[in-house]
């Protein structure tokens, strides 16, 4: 069992939070919808060149946080900083050149083809009179090859399977060629094989290109397996953050999800694996 001690986790959290300042950060962020406050006074630094995964129970504000990081939601208070500047002060088109985002359930226009949709990822790099450059062509070809959707280029998106469609959307986000990429539950509605495929792709992308990825995932084990930096949220606050190996403990799982569990090393990757349930102790009846 890895790091059950309380002190280990707290330490890990402190170090993870105080690392080198990344390009993207949140300062005193308060977020909400209508009358409801979802996130209050949140500070977060997202490490550059790493895969950060945000986890937490339903309605803990993780997707809300991601939407704010991608300027889909305007903060009530505080700010999201990109290279030290408040997002609200940067023209949205300029943001789109360094920050890409894939929302939770994007909707494709009816009858659009795969190549057409992926090509729309080039929007922030294009002008009215420059609708298609060699650079656009390279980026789109590359994005489709990486996600394995090149063979689907001329198929309408609405005819694809869920897994194929998700890869097409990721291809669109890749075609945008941003250094930072935010993914909101990219594995939702996918079967386990496709989930692994999408996450491997994200990992690969980070590995090959040094892209900074921030993803919201609801599966804690997948998060622990794929994250360099794990952020655990509960009720709009960051409970712990740091390397999964350092912070994922039975205690954290109980604190964040209210779930009794045993944490063992993943037999494949060695990352922490959360097995729900109480450890079965051989004890006589009282």
């Amino acid at each position, binding site marked *: 069992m890895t790091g059950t001690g309380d002190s280990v986790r707290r330490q890990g959290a402190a170090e993870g939070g105080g690392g080198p300042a990344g390009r993207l950060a949140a300062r005193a962020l308060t977020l909400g919808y209508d009358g409801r406050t979802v996130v209050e006074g949140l500070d977060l630094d997202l490490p550059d060149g790493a895969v950060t995964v945000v986890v937490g129970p339903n309605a803990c504000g993780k997707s809300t946080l991601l939407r704010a990081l991608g*300027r889909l939601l305007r903060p009530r208070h505080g700010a999201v900083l990109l290279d030290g500047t408040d997002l609200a002060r940067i023209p949205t088109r300029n943001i789109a050149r360094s920050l890409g985002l894939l929302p939770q359930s994007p909707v494709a226009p009816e009858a*659009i083809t795969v190549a057409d949709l992926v090509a729309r990822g080039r*929007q*922030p790099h294009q002008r009215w009179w420059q609708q298609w450059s060699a650079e656009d062509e390279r980026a789109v070809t590359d994005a489709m*090859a990486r996600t*394995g959707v090149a063979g689907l280029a001329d198929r309408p998106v609405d005819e694809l399977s869920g897994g194929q469609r998700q890869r097409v959307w990721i291809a669109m986000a890749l075609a945008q060629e941003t250094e930072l990429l935010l993914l909101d539950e990219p594995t939702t509605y996918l079967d386990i094989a496709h989930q692994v495929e999408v996450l491997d792709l994200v990992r690969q992308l980070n590995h090959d290109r040094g892209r900074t990825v921030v993803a919201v995932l609801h599966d804690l084990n997948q998060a622990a397996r794929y994250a360099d930096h794990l952020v655990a949220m509960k009720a709009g606050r960051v409970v712990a953050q740091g390397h999964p190996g350092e912070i994922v403990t039975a205690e954290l799982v109980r604190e964040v999800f209210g779930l009794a569990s045993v944490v063992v090393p993943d037999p494949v990757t060695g990352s922490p694996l959360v097995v729900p349930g109480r450890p079965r102790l051989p004890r006589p009846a009282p």
Partner: protein
Amino acid sequence: MTDRKVTGRVPRQGGVPGRRTPPPGPPRGGSAVRPTGHALVRAGRGSFLVHRRAAVAAVVLTVFLAAVCGAYLSVGESFVPPSQVVDVLVGRPSAHELVVGTLRLPRMTVGLMVGAAFGVAGGLIQTVARNPLASPDIIGISQGASALTVAAMTFGVAPPAVGGGTATYAVLPYLSVAGGVLAAALVYVVAWRGGLHATRFVLIGIGCAVALRSVTHLFLTKGDYLVAQQAQVWMTGSLNGRGWAEAAPLGGALLVLLPGVLWAARAQRAVVLDDGTATALGVRLGRTRLGLVALGVVLASLATGAAGPVDFVALLAPQIARRMTRTAQIPLLCSALLGAVLVVLGDLLARKLFAPTELPVGVLTAAVGAPYLLWLVVRGPRTGGCAATGGTA
């Protein structure tokens, strides 16, 4: 798929070696090279993507429209042979100068412009509302234009043609534009709740349309009998009596709006995506939508001012055009051409079908449009793009 992965990575290292002219045969079709079905047109530093099918459709529609226009000028109460029509058009002296040049040609010109304006306006508003039902004659814009115009007619601000001759029609467009814009602003403000919700926008528009229509009827019953009858014809949408006096200001206004339409054709591409994705791509969604709606409202109001609310043209043209081209967004040029075809062909039939009685063109377009509207509703909300997705601007 796996072999593609390899080829896809090659260009990254060495840059893109001279891919100016047609790509040098990339492996099997090179399907990933550009958006499906588009041709690349280069002009100097500019590069433009042209949807092939839309381009073909535009050419076909232009030819068809030309044929309809030819028929429009020669067929009527008296038949003028095509050769004579050509004579008039090129300015050679002809015995048919009065019928073709003075009566039919200006009326047809107004019809062309009204149809095109309705076609584009419908396309823009349907795109923003993400709903094929959202056309200016359904969400209250035409009704707003009607209400103000009829009010002006009945309360004597703009005496109808009965007494005042053709010149008075020149006042109507301004009133109509004002009415349309006011109605649209009303719908926009009422539907706004921290953002523009597509479905709410349409529903509130329909409500406003009903309210404005009853206000218009109130004006009609209050007004003089003759005036009311005149207003009734205008409200059905008619090209009767339209001439150069209406064509010139309308043409001028459309010319001024043309750059806006060119902008809109491109801006639409992002608006058809869902709100989150569009924002992530760096589109200022709120402003873009407002711009598209405003343009659509002004176009629809201008057209209404010139010919009255010719029903269903703005509803039909964009949807037929999209089915012809199979593009992901409404093709504005084809939509404009189809709108023109619908109005000019409609007016030709309206003049000829029950001759010597002349129907208002709006009766004809409604006869075609109403069944289509029913079909749209019966077929369900799948038509016309990402139907009823919520989201805020």
